[in-house]
């Protein structure tokens, strides 16, 4: 169980979530990424990021609407294989 950053973050990247995450489990590569990613292994579900996001892009994985369900795997995948995650984000944004 973890928070997930879904489609509204794409190409916005406000980064308020990164500023408030107490366990530093949100990241992105500013030179390559269109969104930020939450590490589900590190997320403690404190909800600070959800409150901070001006786009309303962040929600618990179990609350993701079906259209954004893939973002749970995309966020998890970025911490393993960023290129794969970027391709997956591009597919979502297409």
């Amino acid at each position, binding site marked *: 169980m973890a928070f997930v950053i879904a489609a509204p973050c794409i190409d916005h990247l406000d980064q308020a979530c990164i500023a408030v995450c107490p*366990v530093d489990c949100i990241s992105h590569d500013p030179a390559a990424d269109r969104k930020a990613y939450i590490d589900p292994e590190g997320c403690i579900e404190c909800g600070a990021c959800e409150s901070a996001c001006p786009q309303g892009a962040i929600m618990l994985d179990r609350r993701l609407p079906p259209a954004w369900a893939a973002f749970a795997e995309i966020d998890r995948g970025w911490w393993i294989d960023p290129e794969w995650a970027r391709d997956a984000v591009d597919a979502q944004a297409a």
Partner: protein
Amino acid sequence: MIAEIAGRSIAGGPRGVRRAPDLADNAVLVARELLSPTVARLVVRPDAGVGAFVAGQYLALGVRVDDGVVQRPYSTASDPAAADAHEFLVRRVPGGALTPRLWALPVGARVRLGPPKGAFTLVAGDQRPHLFVATGTGLAPFLAMLRTLARRPNPPRTILLHGAASAEDLVCRDEIAALAVGGLPLTYVPTVSRPDDPANRGWRGRTGRAETVLASVLRSDDLPPVALVAYLCGNPGMVAAAENALLILGVAPGDIHAERYWTAPGDTSAPGRMLDTGRA
């Protein structure tokens, strides 16, 4: 692994090994003081020093469990200008993942401390009267803020309204009194929300939930609500109710700053979030 995303194949799924963050122990528990049967003050000194932080911010405090770290955010009560360690108010949550371990940890034990985070901080240079409303261990960031304000040559007028179910959880009263004696123009209003509880027999102070006594506190202190800035910290139920009460009294929405500590009881959508899981 997903084979298809939005109709496009993302072949093979992610490949590689997860980049694990560095969660090495980097601080030491230097003191633990029982303030009430359920609330303790933990003092934690980072190996590299406290560094820069701002009153009102929080840090993740964690202990090693098996091959991982269980960590939760706690607001620091320390004065950024004077601290060589972080002081946390921790409520023990029976069965919680972290707090029973923190209570059992020997002084001198190694712990994990994250960086200071959060934007629940004082507005620089604001000389309007400051109203602080806390429940339980939500007092912690306000101790840091009051200590910060007390160092100003001309500190603003301050009111601290602290609510707790039990009088014994109205902790740190000596420190608060010392701030007032030291020159900070501070009105301290403790209130007990369960006066009929046998544990509160003998309580002669104000009674009622923090949000319900707000209006009378402002009246008795002759403070026009439109002239103040408010900071709220504690359980989300209090924060929401106090915010609503202040808006009705005429405080501008932009002058109400809030930090929510844990999910309201009954919110099963996020079980346990921010409650030994959190800064409670």
